[in-house]
C-alpha cells in the first residue's frame, strides 16, 4: 500500500509543478516537494516505528523552518504532540504490563496518528492565506496518507491480539466523528478555503472507518480513498486557491464534474470506495453502514460548493483538471489491479 501511495504522491507533485498557476514559483515548490518525497521514501523503507517517528520529527522541523507568518513553535506543536503520543503508545505496547497499559498504548497510537494527520480532535492551525507547503495541508493530503499506512502496518506488529479490537473500534469512532464534523463544517463554514480543508477531514473519516473495519473491503476502500485524496482532492485544492482568493464561483459543466468527483459519485474513484466501505460495514455491523450512508449523502451540498469554488480552469490548469478527473474515472471503473497490487 505504501508504495502505491508514494507513487501517487510523486505523480501529484509532478502535476502540481507542471500545471501550476503562473504566479507559483515552480522551483521552490519542486524542491520542497522533493524533500517531502524523500521523507516519504524513508518512511516507506524504515523497518521500525521508532525510525518512522524520527523521520517525522525531521520533516516537522524542516516544515516549521520554512518562511511563514506563523512562528516555529506554532507549526511544530502539532507534529511533536503526535510523535509524543505515538512514542508513548509504542513504549506501553513494548513493556510487559497489565492489559490496561496495553489498551492505553493502543489509545496513544491512534491518538498520535490522528494528531499527526491533523484530524479531530487535533485540528492543526489553518490559515487560508498561508503557502500550501508551510500549511497543515501536506500533513493531511501529501505525507499523511503514506504515514498512516506505514504507522498502521508497523503498529500491528507491536499490538497484542486482545488490543486489536479496541484499536479498530477507536479508528471507527474517530472516523465517524471526522466524517460528520467535516461534512457539516464544510457545509456551514463561510470560507471556501475552510470548506476545502474540512473536505479532507471528511474523506479521512471514511479512511479511518475503512481501516477500523479490518476486513478486505474496508482496507480496499481506505486505499482507494487515500489515493483519491492524494491524486484528486489535493491537486484540485491547489488549483482552486486562486479562484477561492478571487471569490469567483462559477456554474459551468466542469464545476459540476469536479463536484461529482469530490462527492464520490459514479464513475469516479470515490464511488467504488464508498460502495466497498458500505459493503464492509454491513458485514461487520449494519447500523454503521446506515450512519455512513447518511454522512455520504450529506456530503453532496458541500461538494457542489467546492466544485463551484474552482472557478473556470484555463490553460495548463484545465489540462491538469482533465488528467485528475480521467485518473479518478479510471480508478472508479477499474480498481481491481490496484487492489490486487495492495494485496
Amino acid at each position: 500500500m505504501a508504495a502505491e501511495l508514494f507513487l501517487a504522491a510523486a505523480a501529484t507533485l509532478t502535476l502540481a509543478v507542471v500545471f501550476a498557476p503562473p504566479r507559483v514559483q515552480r522551483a521552490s515548490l519542486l524542491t520542497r516537494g522533493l524533500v517531502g518525497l524523500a521523507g516519504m521514501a524513508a518512511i516507506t523503507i524504515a523497518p521500525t516505528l521508532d525510525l518512522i517517528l524520527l523521520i517525522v520529527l525531521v520533516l516537522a522541523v524542516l516544515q516549521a523552518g520554512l518562511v511563514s507568518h506563523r512562528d516555529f513553535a506554532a507549526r511544530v506543536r502539532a507534529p511533536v504532540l503526535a510523535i509524543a503520543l505515538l512514542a508513548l503508545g509504542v513504549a506501553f505496547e513494548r513493556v510487559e504490563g497489565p492489559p490496561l497499559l496495553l489498551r492505553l498504548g493502543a489509545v496513544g497510537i491512534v491518538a498520535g496518528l490522528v494528531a499527526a494527520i491533523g484530524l479531530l480532535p487535533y485540528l492543526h492551525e489553518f490559515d487560508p492565506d498561508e503557502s500550501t507547503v508551510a500549511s497543515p495541508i501536506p500533513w493531511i493530503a501529501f505525507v499523511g496518507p503514506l504515514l498512516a499506512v506505514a504507522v498502521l502496518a508497523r503498529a500491528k506488529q507491536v499490538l497484542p491480539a486482545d488490543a486489536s479490537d479496541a484499536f479498530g473500534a477507536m479508528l471507527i469512532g474517530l472516523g465517524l466523528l471526522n466524517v460528520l464534523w467535516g461534512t457539516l463544517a464544510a457545509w456551514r463554514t463561510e470560507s471556501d478555503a475552510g470548506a476545502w480543508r474540512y473536505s479532507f477531514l471528511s474523506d479521512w473519516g471514511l479512511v479511518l472507518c475503512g481501516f477500523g473495519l479490518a476486513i478486505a473491503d474496508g482496507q480496499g476502500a481506505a486505499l482507494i480513498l487515500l489515493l483519491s485524496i492524494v491524486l484528486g482532492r489535493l491537486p484540485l485544492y491547489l488549483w482552486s486557491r486562486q479562484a477561492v482568493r478571487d471569490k469567483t464561483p462559477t456554474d459551468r459543466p466542469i464545476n459540476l464534474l469536479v463536484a461529482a468527483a469530490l462527492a464520490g459519485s459514479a464513475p469516479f474513484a470515490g464511488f467504488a470506495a464508498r460502495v466497498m466501505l458500505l459493503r464492509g460495514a454491513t458485514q461487520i455491523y449494519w447500523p454503521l453502514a446506515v450512519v455512513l450512508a447518511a454522512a455520504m449523502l450529506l456530503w453532496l451540498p458541500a461538494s457542489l460548493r467546492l466544485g463551484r469554488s474552482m472557478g473556470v480552469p484555463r490553460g495548463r490548469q484545465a489540462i491538469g483538471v482533465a488528467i485528475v478527473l480521467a485518473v479518478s474515472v479510471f480508478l472508479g471503473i477499474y480498481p481491481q489491479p490496484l487492489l490486487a497490487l495492495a494485496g
Partner: protein
Amino acid sequence: MIEVAAALIVWLGAALVVLADARRGLALGLAVVTIGFAVLAWASGQPVGGVALVVGGMTGALRCWTAGHGTWGLMPHGSTSRLVLCVAAGLLSWWISASVTPTPGGPLLFAVLVVLGLMAARILTGGDIVVDRTAIACFALALASSPALASSTPTGPVPYIFGALIAAAVIVAPATLPQGAARSGKDGG
C-alpha cells in the same frame, strides 16, 4: 544501580530544560539528558549508540551554550507550575516503570517516559525558538533510545545515530524568523 542513577540524571536534565528560559540553562539540561541516555545505551549493550548520543547531544549543547549572550534563566518568576510538572511527571513515570510494569528495562522506560512527557509539555506551552529546539533535541535522544525497550527484538546503533544527528542538527541549523511576506502563497501554490 548505574542504570537507575542514569535515569534520574535524565530526569534532572529534562527538568532543567523545562525550568530554564535562557541558553546556558537549556544547554546544561541538554548535556545532562545526553549523558544519562548515553549511559543507558551503554548499559543496554549499545556502546556505539552511546558514543553517537554523546557526540550529537554534546554538539547541540555546546552550540546552545556558545550562541549569543548566555544567561542561566533558571526558575524565573512564575515557574512554580513548571516545577510541579517536573515532579509530577517524574513520579508518574516512576510509578509506571517501577510498579505497573515488572520489566528489567525499568530505568530506560522511566527515562523515555519522563523526557517524552516533559519535552512535549515544554513545546506545547513554550514559544521561544531556542527553547523549542532544545526540547526537540532532547525529544530526539529519547526517541532514539526507545527501541531498546523491546527486549525481544535486537536494536542496532542506527536509531541512536539518527537521533543524535537530529539532536545536533536541530540546534546548529540557522533559525527562520516568521515573515509577513510569506502570506502570498507564491512558493507553494
